[in-house]
């Protein structure tokens, strides 16, 4: 199943399929390791549900939902 990263629930895991978004944000996401094939787990959500914290490539990264929308994921069952 495919959905964007912002729709993930806490503890859900998936693999990055596509990264979209405007140049600067997209580049930043890439630089931080969010590239197709990367495995990502949604670790937690901040108070009020935004931003979110994910684990990927063995470290923790926080990003906003507006940025997570740019990341399309293949959900792992």
């Amino acid at each position, binding site marked *: 199943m495919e959905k964007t990263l912002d729709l993930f629930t806490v503890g859900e895991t998936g693999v990055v399929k596509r990264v979209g978004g405007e140049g600067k944000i997209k580049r930043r996401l890439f630089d931080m390791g969010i590239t197709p*094939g990367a495995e990502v787990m949604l670790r937690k959500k901040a108070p009020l549900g935004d931003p979110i914290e994910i*684990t990927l490539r063995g470290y923790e990264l926080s990003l906003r939902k507006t940025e997570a929308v740019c990341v399309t994921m293949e959900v792992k069952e």
Partner: protein
Amino acid sequence: MKKFALAGNPNCGKTTLFNSLTGSTAHVGNWPGVTVDKREGVYKKTPEHVAIVDLPGIYSLSPYTPEEVIARNFILDEKPDCVINIVDATNLERNLYLTTQVMEIDVPVVVALNMMDAVEKNGDAIDAKELEKRLGVPVVKISALKGVGLDELMQRAYDFSSQERKGATVLKDSALAHLIGDVKIALDGQDVANPLFHAVKLVEQDSIEVEMHKDTVKMVEEFKATFSDDVFGDDFEALVADARYKYISKNFAPVLKRREEDKFVSTKSDKADKVLTHKIWGIPIFLVILFAIFHLTFSEDFLYLGAIFHLPSLEDLGLLDADGEFLNFGVKLLACVYDGAVFSPGVIINKLWNEILVGELFGWLGGLVEGSGMEAWAVGLINNGIFEGLAAVLSFLPQILVLFLFFSILEDSGYMARIAFILDRMFRKFGLSGRSFMPMIMGFGCSIPAMINTRTLADEKERTATVRVIPFFSCGAKLPILTAVAGAIVVWTGAGNADLITFSMYLLGIVSAILAVLLMRNTTLRGDTPPFIMELPAYHAPQFKNLMIHLWDKAKHFVKKAFTIILASTIIIWLFSHFSFAWKFLEDEEIDQSILAQISMFLQPLFTPLGFGSQLGANGWVFVVAAIAGLIAKENVIATFSTLAACLIAGGAISGAGLEVEAEDGIDAVRAMIDATGIGVPGLIAFIAFNMTTIPCFAAVATAKAELGTKKAFNNTLLFWVAASYVIASAVYTIGAFPWTIALWVVAVAAVVVCIVLRNKNLAKKGA
């Protein structure tokens, strides 16, 4: 002398390594982006000394943030003899991403695998030999924190630096390999240095490169027209980044042998995190921690034990003699810890320092001067001018250090970055990212490093707004104003709570900052909210050595300042308060004819709406003098009070009955001011508010000027500070003194808000 550059991701231990190598004490923290400018030191254990340059932490050599550009330009233009690329071994893949870019430059590169101790503690292992073979450059395991492997690292870097090295890329297998090769040949033909690096960046259509090689970029565009990838289309930047990570996952990541197969295993750090960034409790916990810090530092009633158990005061216990003096030295010591309530640790340290050390010392020195037979004016200058000023400033040193210690612990442990995470949602409402929280919180220490740290913010408008409100986060030097005035209010009215007043003044600063940002982001600094994509570092216990270094630096700096600029200022103030315009020496009684008093009286009406202007009568000018002296350094405010209070009492302008303005106590100085002027509590609070939000010290103004770039932005910033402090202080005063004026303020604020909203709607319509 050879020159080595340290490059690596933010928070990978670069600065710790730099400190270990050069024996320096640069500021280290546990959140990304502590180092924002390059700095230099010298390593002395190699046969020939080596200059070490610490570059800002970066994730990539892209042109999007100022630090990335600084690091990139340094490596390309200054041509270091070797780049030591520090790689956080606990976070191998992402750190090697930068390595693959650095390796494209024609410079010797040595990879330092840092935090190997942490990796081994997890039960994991890294095969450094294998990694070295696959990367093609030397790889050395180190632990910067424990000082392991540093000499080997430097020896290998030193040996390697004398060799020529041509750039190598991991993009050989990608779809763009041919294009990169062609562009490289073209650049080679133009005698461009580092052709491979520039070729790759040009293929990525990096804005800096496109600007530099306008002709060659056509090659890329032509190729692009014929090219299409299934996933990326013709987005070369994405393709390159993806190819790098693919290569890393396939070829480099396997050198890491994990003990646990589960990638998402839960650690101690996670457990702490669960509580500290809890969905509901995260923000309350943060507020409690903040309050606890202030309570531990400032409270004269620790844990409110005194209030709860109605503990007896020393007087009740019969430990004071008829004059209210302590019976013996033991009681004096006891009074530093307990008097009707147990004091908090910060207060205890402060009292010990002041009563036992500084007070005795200056008391003794003052006696010597009086007994020396010098002329009266000389005794006055030394005792009332120099000693009073010095002691008033030094008396706050312990509390500043205690507060600073707590902030260092928050920063070192990694909690600061989490605060940014939990507060981001709120900050966004004001048009900032959670990241701008970091420089703001640094502002509690000192505005200057905080302003410099705003370089981690990519958005120029966000930066300007942040620089402007940083002084509202009351710095260490403004603390004495807070404690002295709050203390005086408590002693004078016999009610209230010094730590509560201090805490709420800090809050006032924060609220003012938020409102000011909101205002600016909706009017002069409109723009989109900047992105918030930030690494959250692992928690770790604060390093004792690191904390002590922070404290020592702070103390040294503070004392140095007290004996130079502040001492000089107090002398000048004393001079101007004892000479008239006719250059005639004035006795203490005639202080109101002095140059200082005359100028301040002239300016006094300006401060009437703020509660410390004309309504204060003949001696009211002292507040104006203090506020002006504060423009040089904020420590001057209380130093000025002490100097002037001593003169006023000596001159008989105020009785000083029951008051002994002693060298060690800024609180008594403020009380003398209250007696002399009859200023009320609202005026005093407004005075604090004014000093907190007005133009900061001279040094901070200079920094703001440098950081803001354009002259126009700087001038507007000065104007903003004057206007903001005037409005905030007059609001505080009028509402405090005449509560009904709150209605006027509400109406005024509402009118401004409506105007802005309407205007922005209009603009939006025009834009659409």
